């Protein structure tokens, strides 16, 4: 039986209700934290657990907290702006276990002694917004939020903020700008971390939904117990989002490093393989910003460092499967087009480079390409992210720009013949 942490309640039909939450250990973590532990003890447990941020960058949550500048006012922002293509784990957590999210956010607020907390959810999550607001209302009603939580000396408010449709707002400094009522333009670094200068210029911690959803379990079972799951730096479990051309796409929570991509894609309890007669062409291990993997990578375990060592990233934990009926030119074009559309427009390499890559890829896909286009595409990629290496070099304020080259480069390097058929014969070999 695979260990379940953030997804422990998801098999219940009524997992989103307060009754189910309270009947399955809800509030225990928060009670223990505010009544029996000091804030620094809570933070120490999270440090011991080595909980890596589940948003994409994989930064240690405890270390992030420890960087918080000790100003009188400090803020906590929960990032639920999940928009990385093919990532849908936070969508599930906010809709199906909103109470766990609110409990986790309150524990985090206690640990860093936040003055004020905002849960920023993607605007498109209409149902999730309603459920999280309901959970917040119910938390106030039973004194799990607000003044003197459970009779302790800790008081805090949580406000729910809807986004309004912009991928870039998942970038934490952009999210903060959006939260200040502005366009979602990422801020110039340094400072590298909002922990130094964040919301309203005050120190701010930005944590992902799944990250804080782990906190009730960590407080109940201890950081050591969390660390015993997984291996090395990859501790605990992760909610992997499997999508694309598999028989059974879905969210699967598994212990880190204990299964491989082959298990996830082909396993009976997971993806159950491809459609009959199909073979695997490629898969993306961690969201569309990540370099592609191929059949020879199937036996890599689902772990942070294991995937990084093989030249890609676990990122947001979303695995996209492409079988041999799909056109790699089209897939790479669609990913490039996404970034071109979502570029905020501040930096020239991303704004112009992305738009040109989109146009050139499209003309190749439509059979209007030229042979010189392949070198032109790589040259554009090199201008956005010099050397087209991994991890990528950066010429822009944020990492959206450098996220464009990996897919384009992977498709050109591995499926050159597909490109050449499009260009020379004006047709798609997969049509």
């Amino acid at each position, binding site marked *: 039986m695979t260990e379940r942490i953030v997804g422990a309640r998801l098999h219940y039909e009524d997992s989103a209700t307060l009754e189910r939450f309270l009947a399955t250990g809800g509030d225990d973590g928060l009670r223990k934290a505010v009544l029996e532990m000091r804030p620094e003890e809570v933070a120490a447990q999270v440090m011991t657990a080595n909980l890596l941020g589940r948003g994409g960058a994989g930064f240690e949550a405890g270390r992030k907290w420890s960087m918080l500048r000790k100003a009188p006012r400090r803020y906590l922002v929960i990032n639920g702006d999940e928009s990385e293509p093919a990532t849908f784990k936070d969508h599930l957590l906010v809709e199906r276990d909103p109470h766990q999210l609110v409990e986790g956010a309150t524990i985090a607020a206690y640990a860093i002694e936040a003055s004020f907390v905002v849960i920023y959810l993607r605007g498109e999550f209409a149902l999730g917004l309603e459920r999280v607001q309901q959970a917040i209302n119910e938390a106030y009603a039973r004194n799990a939020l607000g003044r003197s939580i459970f009779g302790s000396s800790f008081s805090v408010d949580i*406000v729910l903020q809807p986004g309004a*449709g912009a991928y870039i707002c998942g970038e934490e400094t952009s999210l903060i700008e959006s939260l200040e*009522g502005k366009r979602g333009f990422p801020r110039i670094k340094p400072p590298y971390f909002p922990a130094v200068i964040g919301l309203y210029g005050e120190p701010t911690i930005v944590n992902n939904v799944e990250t804080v959803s782990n906190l009730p379990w960590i407080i109940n079972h201890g950081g050591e117990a969390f660390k015993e799951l997984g291996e090395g730096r990859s501790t605990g479990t992760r909610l992997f989002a499997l*999508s694309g*051309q598999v028989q059974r796409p879905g969210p699967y929570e598994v212990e880190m490093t204990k299964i491989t991509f082959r298990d996830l894609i082909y396993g009976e309890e997971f993806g159950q393989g491809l459609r009959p007669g199909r073979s695997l062409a490629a898969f993306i291990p961690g969201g569309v910003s990540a370099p592609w993997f191929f059949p020879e990578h199937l036996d890599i375990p689902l772990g942070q460092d294991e995937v990084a060592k093989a030249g890609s990233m676990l990122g947001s934990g979303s695995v996209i499967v492409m079988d041999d009926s799909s056109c790699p030119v089209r897939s790479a074009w669609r990913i490039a087009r996404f970034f071109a559309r979502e570029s905020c427009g501040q930096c020239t390499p991303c704004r112009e480079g992305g738009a040109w890559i989109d146009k050139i890829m499209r003309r190749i896909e439509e059979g209007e390409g030229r042979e010189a286009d392949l070198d032109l595409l790589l040259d554009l990629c090199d201008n956005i992210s010099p050397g087209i290496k991994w991890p990528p070099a950066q010429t822009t304020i944020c990492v959206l720009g450098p996220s464009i080259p990996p897919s384009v480069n992977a498709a050109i390097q591995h499926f050159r013949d597909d490109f050449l058929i499009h260009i020379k014969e004006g047709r798609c070999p997969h049509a």
Partner: protein
Amino acid sequence: MSRFTGEMLSRAEELVSLYPDPRSATIPLCHLAQEQDGYVTNEAMAHIAELVGSSAAEVQGTASFYDMLKLEPVGRYVIGVCTNIACMLRGAYELLEDAEGVLDVPVGATTADGLFTLEEVECIAHCDRAPAAQVNYRYFGPLDRESFETLVTQLRNGDLDDEVPPHGTLLRVRREAPAVIPMEEIDRYRAQEAEREKASD
């Protein structure tokens, strides 16, 4: 009917009072304006600026950045078909074409009866139900031509009125909590705490 009045005005003021800085209410107020008028009108943006203490230009600058905030009228139902990678691999472009056929409008247009606006959207995080679509941000999937046609018929007949409110109504659950703990109170508490620590050193 573009400035906030009556019940809408009190909801707007409630939202503004939630934040340490009123400008943080800009986007929530734009959503509220959409709930009132179906889109964000110039008058609403001017009123939002008054309420949060910025200028109409700043509010427009913000509103025009975000895909969900419409600065021009849209249909009662805004249908967004996702064509991003996970949906594309499972037939999203075919679905989008079917949607154009069923609604008899091209992507980006609104039907003559003002009922439907069709959009092509980026990933909506419903990838395990691909190909997926959203109607006023309520999710449906997996869809094919037949189930899409059924969905449109149901919307037209009002069968989904409980599930899918008119465009602009995002959050039907209102905040019930008591007034926010004043920042000044927290500041004061922190200052006392710091002094106590100093005294004990």
